[in-house]
């Protein structure tokens, strides 16, 4: 039996919850320079538990940073120079999904930006970026900041995600007032007596929270949350299958410096005001694609048979003509069938378009399908 995998010789970093993972029998693997849990009891059971109850994820490998400056507007303008979102219009305590764009209209990274509420010691804006991109992103942002605006890397904070239909009840049980919060808002508070910054957001399609916590308190908080009977620890394996069912992009697989936000179907993140002004990096390409349609589009794909189609599987038309490539694919535990996403030529992007996926040199029938594959259940 051979499974392809990559290993490298560099020393791996550990998160504040490394000991908890090891003690709970996680299988640890290298991921973005960290030794991270890929699974505990098994990806299928963990995945289904998140959809049915609540799961706790260690996402401390992601990059957290705060921006300080003389006024919110100054900092918002600095962010708008790098991203296509409306940060001047973002209200205190609200979160925006956005992208760092290259001048060529590609995506350097996707990230979450929260506007602080002006509480003591809090940054005016808070950023959460992908683990594999954090050193690039933060240097890129720093280089663009005007005088007086500073970026602080929050290296003394861990990040715990609590996701699933029972997540809000679990937070309430820990003494956190979750009820007044809606999706994509943030506030400070305490859970089980630990001071935290909480976002109502996530990467599973479920309702849930991302909890930023000082590293010294991370294990105590995680153990307190895990003591609730509805909560189980969840590894990165289920995190990936959950986000794929939810139709969410994985940076480095589904989006990168070669894909534009329009090709990726992320036009909701291009604010109306910013489109009209055309004042973000890569605007020439992006506005042209909005006007004329991009050459290719990210679509959902349902293989008709039982064989999963993994990333880099070639996509052809029914007639054998090359159309593109799968960027993420695997088995959907909630649907008991394979699912995938990938890029196809625009003419083949309509729902229901028949495709052929070249898995192990054999054409397998598939068709374009709407995403998300599993409906989102955010608290609006």
């Amino acid at each position, binding site marked *: 039996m051979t499974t392809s995998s990559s290993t490298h010789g560099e020393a791996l970093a550990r998160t504040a919850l490394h000991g908890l993972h090891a003690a709970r029998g996680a299988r640890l693997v290298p991921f973005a320079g960290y030794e991270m849990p890929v699974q505990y009891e098994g990806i299928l059971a963990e995945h289904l538990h998140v959809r049915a109850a609540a799961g706790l994820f260690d996402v401390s490998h992601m990059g957290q940073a705060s921006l300080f400056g003389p006024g919110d507007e100054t900092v918002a303008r600095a962010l708008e120079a790098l991203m296509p979102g409306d940060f001047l219009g973002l209200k205190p305590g609200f979160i925006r999904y956005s992208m760092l764009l290259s001048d060529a209209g590609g995506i350097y990274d996707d990230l979450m930006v929260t506007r602080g509420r002006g509480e003591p010691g809090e940054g005016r804006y808070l950023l959460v970026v992908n683990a594999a991109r954090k050193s690039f992103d933060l240097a890129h942002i720093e280089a663009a900041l005007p005088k007086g605006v500073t970026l602080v890397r929050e290296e003394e904070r861990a990040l715990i995600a609590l996701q699933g239909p029972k997540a809000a009840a679990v937070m309430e049980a820990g003494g956190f007032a979750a009820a007044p919060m809606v999706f994509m808002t943030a506030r400070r508070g305490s859970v089980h007596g630990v001071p935290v910054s909480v976002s109502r957001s996530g990467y599973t399609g479920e309702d849930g929270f991302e909890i930023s916590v000082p590293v010294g308190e991370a294990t105590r908080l995680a153990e307190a949350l895990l003591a609730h009977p509805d909560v189980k620890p969840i590894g990165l394996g289920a995190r990936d299958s959950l986000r794929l069912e939810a139709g969410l992009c994985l940076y480095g697989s589904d989006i990168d410096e070669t894909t534009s936000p329009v090709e990726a179907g992320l036009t909701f993140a291009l604010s109306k005001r910013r489109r009209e002004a055309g004042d973000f990096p890569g605007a020439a390409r992006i506005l042209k694609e909005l006007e004329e349609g991009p050459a290719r589009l990210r679509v959902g794909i349902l293989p008709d048979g039982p064989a999963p189609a*993994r990333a880099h599987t070639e996509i052809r038309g029914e007639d054998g003509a090359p159309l593109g490539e799968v960027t993420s694919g695997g088995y959907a535990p909630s649907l008991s069938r394979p699912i995938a996403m990938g890029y196809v030529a625009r003419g083949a992007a309509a729902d229901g378009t028949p495709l052929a996926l070249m898995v192990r040199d054999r054409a397998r029938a598939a068709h374009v399908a709407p995403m998300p594959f599993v409906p989102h259940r955010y608290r609006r």
Partner: protein
Amino acid sequence: MIKFTDQHEWVRVEGEEAVVGITPYAAEQLGDVVFVELPEAGRKVDQFKEAAVVESVKAASEIYAPVGGEVVAVNAALAETPGLVNEDALGKGWFLKLRIRDKGELDKLMSAEEYETYVKGL
């Protein structure tokens, strides 16, 4: 007689035929098996060459024939219930049955004791 490969396949010899599967260690390493692609009956496979593919939630893995021969049967139950590989790797989770081409090839494989020692060293 049951023998093992260093790639974690097993082969149980029944007269001129051989039943092939993967070991509990392999099943544990793979995690939840969600699909097994089996060869068609009549296909000839060579020793240590690809005979099947097993897919877990995370990845696809190639399964090699412990001995060469012609495929005479495959485990149809795996199409409906691929999880049999995790539940009963040495029994109901078998993959395929071969008519053995050359029993001499079995000498290249490990005994149960040898395989047990090998896995302990991993």
